[in-house]
């Protein structure tokens, strides 16, 4: 155990925790926008996989990371359009529709991977970019300011999402259709378009989260996300629908994951013990969900389809 409590090991663990938290953070922030508008999307995991594969394949074909991110987000928005049509326009049950999206994402990415790529080929993923000056600070710089671009994007999204939801007219519309769509409707706010837009944003971000994951690891494989999309949904509840709370949850998961990895690398845990330790994030998810089951602050109209004639 003592080998873990060295400055080098702890700094490395924290830095990698922040890096690992980025996909959680991006996906959960996106999901929170949808939920504030009253739409639960259980398909985050599937959309993340689609984003991950789209980014991987584009990077493989073109070698252009920016193009890879762009294509991934585009695919996410496309999936969002499908999900919005099913749930908002056709008023289908959100829970089961989201599971359908997840299964679709899981299946289609594997199929395309088998057909288009076949054997795993690594790609040149995202490069670490050190922030000028800040990145040179000892320890602090190592932990916070030497990451790839999408990690910075993830953390910049926190104030952006907060501002859009709380300080813009669009955000006011989002909050109102998530709480009392009838009231919004009588004032001429389009419940349909507000929810559709929120879903498109949420799915775009979910796909971006998948891209962040694939471009970070530089590889794609079946079920690459391994449940991270579902954890992201749990984080929205954990964070009580607030960007700051979601950040806290994402960091917690990132650091737990990196600690587990570090322990394995250092041989602190090995064999069957390491398999058990690997379950830590899953156990943590369950504990978190039990603790936050009070659902304080949940948008009242979450999962309720809106139909004016009812």
């Amino acid at each position: 155990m003592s080998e873990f409590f060295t400055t080098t090991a702890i700094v490395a663990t924290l830095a990698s925790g922040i890096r690992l938290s980025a996909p959680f953070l991006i996906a959960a922030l996106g999901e929170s926008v949808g939920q504030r508008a009253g739409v639960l999307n259980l398909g985050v995991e599937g959309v993340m996989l689609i984003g991950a594969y789209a980014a991987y394949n584009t990077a493989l074909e073109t070698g252009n990371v920016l193009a890879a991110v762009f294509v991934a987000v585009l695919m996410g928005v496309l999936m969002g359009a499908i999900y919005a049509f099913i749930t908002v326009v056709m008023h289908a049950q959100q829970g089961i529709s989201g599971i359908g999206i997840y299964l679709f994402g899981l299946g289609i990415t594997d199929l395309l991977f088998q057909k288009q790529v076949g054997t795993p080929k690594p790609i040149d993923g995202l490069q670490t970019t050190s922030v000028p000056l800040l990145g040179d600070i000892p320890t602090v710089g190592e932990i916070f300011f030497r990451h790839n671009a999408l990690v910075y994007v993830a953390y910049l999204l926190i104030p952006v999402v907060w501002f859009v939801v709380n300080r813009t007219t669009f955000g006011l519309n989002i909050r109102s259709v998530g709480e009392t769509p009838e009231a919004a409707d009588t004032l001429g706010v389009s419940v349909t378009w507000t929810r559709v837009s929120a879903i498109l944003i949420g799915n775009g971000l979910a796909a971006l989260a998948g891209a962040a994951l694939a471009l970070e690891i530089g590889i794609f494989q079946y079920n690459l996300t391994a449940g991270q999309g579902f954890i992201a949904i749990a984080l929205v509840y954990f964070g009580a629908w607030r960007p700051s709370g979601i950040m806290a949850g994402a960091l917690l998961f990132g650091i737990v994951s990196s600690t587990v990895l570090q322990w394995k690398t250092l041989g602190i845990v090995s064999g069957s013990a390491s398999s058990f330790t690997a379950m830590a994030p899953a156990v943590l998810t369950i504990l978190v969900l039990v603790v936050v089951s009070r659902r304080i602050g949940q948008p009242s109209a979450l999962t309720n389809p809106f139909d004016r004639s009812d």
Partner: protein
Amino acid sequence: MDHPRPRGNQPVVLGVDSSTPRPVSPMSPDLDVPMLEMRGITKRFPGVVANEGVDFTVRSGRVHTLLGENGAGKSTLMKILFGLYRPDEGSVHLEGTEVEIRSPADAISRGIGMIHQHFMLVPTLTVAENVALGLGGAWGFSDLRPIRQRLVEVSERYGLQVDPDAFIWQLAVGERQRVEILKALFRDARILVLDEPTAVLTPPEVTDLFTTLRQLRDDGRGLVFISHKLHEVMEISNEITVLRDGRIVGNTVPESSSRESLAQMMVGRPVLFTRTVQPHDPGEDRLVVRDLVVQGDRGNLAVDKVSLSVRAGEILGVAGVSGNGQRELAEAIFGLRPVESGGIDIDGVPADSLAPKAVRSKGMAYVPEERMRDGVIGEFTVAENLVLVDHGSPPYTRWGFLRFGAIKKQCTRLVQRYSVKTPMLETLTRSLSGGNIQKVVIAREFSCGAEILVVSQPTRGIDVGAAEYVHEQLLGQRTAGAAILLISEDLDEVLQMSDRVAVIFRGQIMDQLPRSEATAMRVGRLMMGLKAE
């Protein structure tokens, strides 16, 4: 006046020139001019004609009352006006021009404002944010400063005091209604529809509301007032239209009508108004509640040290504005909600923390306020709901099997005795009218031999005839010696039925008055949390 009448469909631009807010009420002072005419409106739903050939005119500077029972077609007519329904036949004319109102937003832009009975407010937003909703703003950023400034002006002008930065969930019902009115005025509503605005208010609040309404009327706005409280209708209306079964059955003015004549038009037969509770000596205490403390759904203090006692042969009325702890009190007494501290005694024996089944075995019955959620199972038949309490014991069950013969015999008797109008005993309960569903609940609860009755909102949302019947049954139980706790938000009902009146406000009993001292004004002030003058 020669300034042009403002067009309602002008876009409302906010945040552009906040230094010179637009005039608050640029209304034409022309009075008695038709602003809105609805001609020959017919609306059919599967199996029902909700409106049939209805003509309705709103004039500037006049209050036009729409009177009718639940289901008479008032709401349908107003939903057509507000763009929520399209009429099958007939036309809507605004200031002489035929218009087609496609949506609520369309109605608002044409200068029609609606104060819904169930407030259309977002509880988690502030007053200013609720008013700003749907107005848009400069560059998509919601700048609430100009909104706040105009809010203060409009509320001062019409005496509608409200804090722009308060969250809706923090406000009392009366304040929420003021926000609704402000929302409509903010959008320059020239025609204002108020759907049962007094149903949730205390008498002093009704007085304030009427002052505001008169001022709006004198500004030249056209007001539609919907209510079935006849003394209010007589007080505020300039013109009264009575609807029954979707048709207009009368058009009159208050000067040439009386409460009795209006009620007869509304119901179609004479209605008994002056039922008096004959005083008689009550018996022993049956139900005693001591310093009861109960939590609400959000962990808040819903019932705060309430002490009450109900004697045999007595109706204790609990008056109060909705959401002051009435539901939690009733649920705690009936064992549906845990008691934090304090006690409940039935016939001197502690009965708190008992399950509902044990409470029932001690002779208590319960008529819940949400009859569709807690009173009946909508997907069950009338017969099944009628025996739901006793279905597990003889004669309805033997050896674990239901005995349909015995059930049918008992239900036939109950349906006749309590005049439940149902096509068959096998009819699904949810397909009955609200009044008949309530009769099913009353029949079951009053026939199981219980002598302590906890009755919540027994006539809410049911028609006058059924309400009259429920009241007769309650008085019958009282005469038979039952101890009755009557919890109601309808102050008239409490005053009419009770031997004693307790007033609940924020979970506390403000005062308990004998019937002779409980005047509407005095109880109304207590309902607002104001102690003795």
